[in-house]
């Protein structure tokens, strides 16, 4: 489901066993080198005393590089199997020149070591840059770089003449070069350097075209390493017969490999960090997404709608710039977007997504979308309830201010007429007045049933007070909060009590009700316990109330106590 821009990258995780093997071999070589060096130094045959010169700094550089490569190689086996191979090759490449200084080795081996060093370095460079995240599908220019670098190493390997090499003249007594007579070492160095320069130019083109952070870092390191190789060759050609310079130049392969190796290590470490961040993100998706290194958060796409929601299903208002997030898609469209921290590479992020993480993120999307849809439905339900309440309130006002007032005035005028009427008319007028009066009573009950104005004007406690005053059921009311809980909440609480009291149509002598209203944090709890009227309190009568409470995101439950009393409990979130 990974998609970033127009490119789709899926990193196939290879069996890490091969890389562990390669790293182990490289580690073995490194340890062997260190042991042999130690033994030689102990026996008084100090290789660094060669030709009267000491290079303790070289020893430290090589030692630290080797150690770093081994550790990084072992780490890299987790995320980048190619990286461990490259690192192993780099280790060996940087160690090879050491072996060239031991006079007790057969001449052929010493010459071979010197001949193979540039080759090993070139292969290490190629493998390392190849192993960088996002480079499994290299551009043509990158392929040229790789080919030229390898060709350069091969030319040096086959064209090497130990007798022409100032570094080997003292030791390589009886070795014949592979291409003896065809090419001198000097020509081989020239050809190899030309190829390296070609590779360098191609690498610069790759760097120029690359728009992504990770390949740029690796390519930059490769270019620096290739430059060092060219400089090294140029120095050799300039001081061909000088043994002093030849000894110094043995450091350069190690340094150039180290530069690329360090770049790869940085990238691998970053990938690891991002992967850990993504894993932690996936693990924490059930809770609030904390700020994580590499990933700042995640937004989920709502299918079929052009909007994004967060983990809790809330609409996201924060819209980062185009380069600040990675969109992951599947065939149906975008699934989610990961908001990335400054300095995090999109390729790293995608490479860090394991199948398990993707599954977790997809699950989180499903749940976030479900939450968002639920919130939509609830909001629409709320609007419907609020609209109906407003309409009821309007009708109640109209009844009070219109119809009721007119009826009152009719009653007054009937009364006026009555005073001046003769006996028979008076009887009829009095009957009419009685009718008007009973109509007024009915109208008032009707208006009150439509909307309790006292709830809006005086608050929940007063409204409940009047509600139980109007009921035939002896009721105990205990309102423990005087807070303003918001009109919608108060209306729902009122409706709960009204529904229960109204459902008791014919109270028995032992019928009692106890109402308790209390606020607990952000919720209002209304409990109505009706005793001696269990059979009349049925859930069907309370469906409207349950709907109203559900629309506010509250809970509505009915239960029965051990004594047979019905208990209706509503837990309603408080509004503003």
């Amino acid at each position, binding site marked *: 489901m990974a998609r970033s821009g127009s490119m789709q990258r899926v990193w196939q995780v290879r069996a890490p066993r091969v890389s562990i093997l390669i790293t182990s071999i490289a580690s073995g070589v490194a340890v062997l080198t260190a042991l042999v060096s130690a033994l030689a130094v102990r026996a008084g045959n100090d290789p660094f005393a060669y030709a009267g010169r000491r290079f303790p700094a070289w020893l430290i550089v090589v030692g630290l590089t080797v150690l770093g490569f081994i550790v990084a190689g072992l780490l890299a086996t987790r995320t980048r199997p190619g990286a461990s191979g490259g690192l192993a090759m780099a280790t060996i490449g940087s160690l090879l020149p050491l072996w060239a200084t031991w006079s007790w080795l057969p001449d052929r081996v010493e010459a071979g070591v010197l001949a193979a060093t540039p080759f090993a370095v070139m292969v290490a460079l190629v493998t390392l840059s190849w192993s960088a995240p996002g480079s499994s599908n290299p551009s043509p220019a990158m392929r040229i770089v790789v080919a030229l670098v390898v060709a350069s190493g091969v030319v040096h390997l086959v064209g090497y003449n130990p007798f022409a090499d100032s570094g080997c003249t003292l030791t390589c007594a009886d070795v014949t070069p592979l291409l003896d007579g065809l090419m001198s070492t000097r020509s081989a160095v020239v050809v190899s350097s030309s190829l390296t320069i070609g590779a360098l130019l191609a690498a610069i083109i790759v760097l120029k075209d690359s728009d992504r952070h990770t390949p740029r870092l690796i390519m930059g390191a490769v270019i620096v390493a290739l430059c060092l190789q060219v400089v090294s060759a140029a120095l050799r050609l300039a001081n061909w017969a000088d043994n002093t310079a030849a000894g110094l130049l043995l450091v350069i392969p190690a340094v150039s490999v180290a530069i690329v190796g360090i770049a790869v290590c940085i990238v691998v470490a970053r990938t690891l960090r991002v992967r850990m961040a993504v894993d932690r993100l996936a693990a924490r998706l059930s809770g609030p997404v904390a700020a994580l290194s590499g990933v700042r958060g995640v937004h989920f796409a709502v299918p079929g709608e052009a909007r994004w929601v967060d983990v809790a299903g809330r609409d996201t208002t924060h819209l980062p710039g185009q380069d600040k997030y990675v969109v992951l898609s599947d065939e149906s469209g975008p699934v989610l977007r990961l908001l990335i921290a400054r300095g995090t590479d999109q390729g790293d992020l995608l490479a860090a997504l394991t199948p398990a993480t993707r599954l977790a993120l997809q699950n989180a999307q499903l749940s976030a979308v479900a939450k968002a849809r639920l919130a939509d439905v609830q909001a629409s339900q709320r609007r419907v309830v609020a609209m109906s309440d407003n309409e009821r309130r309007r009708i109640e*006002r109209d009844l*009070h*201010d219109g119809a*009721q*007032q*007119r*009826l*009152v*005035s009719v*009653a*007054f*005028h*009937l*009364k*006026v007429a009555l*005073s001046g009427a003769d006996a028979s008319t008076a009887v009829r007028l009095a009957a009419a*007045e009685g009718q008007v*009066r009973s109509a*007024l*009573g009915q109208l*008032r009950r009707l208006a*009150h049933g439509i909307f309790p*104005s*006292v709830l809006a*004007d*005086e608050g929940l406690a*007063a*409204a409940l*007070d*009047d509600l*139980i*005053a*109007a009921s035939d059921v*002896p*009721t*105990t*009311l*205990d309102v423990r909060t005087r807070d303003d809980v918001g009109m919608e909440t108060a209306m729902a609480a009122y409706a709960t009590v009204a529904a229960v009291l109204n459902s008791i149509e014919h109270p028995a002598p032992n019928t009692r009700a106890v109402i308790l209203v209390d606020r607990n944090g952000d919720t209002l709890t209304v409990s109505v316990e009706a005793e001696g009227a269990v059979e009349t309190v049925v859930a069907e009568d309370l469906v409207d109330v349950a709907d109203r409470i559900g629309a506010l995101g509250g809970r509505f439950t009915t239960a029965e106590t051990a004594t047979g009393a019905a208990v209706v409990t509503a837990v309603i979130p408080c509004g503003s």
Partner: protein
Amino acid sequence: MRVVVADDMMLVRSGLVRLLTDAGVEVVGEAADSDALMQLVALERPDVATVDIRMPPTHKDEGLIAARRIRERYPTTAVVVLSQYLEARYALRLLADQPSGLGYLLKERVSDIAILVDAMRRVTEGECVVDPTIVYRLMKRRRPDSPLSHLTPREREILALMAEGRSNAGIASELVVSERTVETVCAQVFRKLGLEPSPDVNRRVLAVLTLLRS
């Protein structure tokens, strides 16, 4: 008895004025909203103002506000609020602080003009009058720790009649008992409600207030 009438609906107002005039009450002015009412009261200083609870501009409780303002500024003018609300809460709001000289009646009851005239007379005497329907609803309420819960049925009955603005004589004739019996029961009610001896009118008002607040 000089009376002013305030009601935003002309038909109601004229009907009321006519009824009052027929009953021998002198109506000295009419007002359609609370501003006009305040001016009228300032000018005429009537004995009683009859005020509709809902008046412009919001049609909610302008009448209550006007009633309290009149009682504050012109203590010689008593007020009867006519309401279409059965809820005791509005009556309580009107009477909560200083109930004497105030009445709260349901509007349609007024078509029996004798009740209104009687209520007007009582409020000018410093009593307070609450509509019987509302008193009945108040008496039905049961609250934990209410002082009313200690009253016997007979005592409650007499308290209710007291709240309706009846005199001891009126209560006695209603219940067909002697006035002396009523006085005894009244004293018991006052004692149970924790009301210290003071002029009778005051204690009656306080007892009604206790009922409203219970």
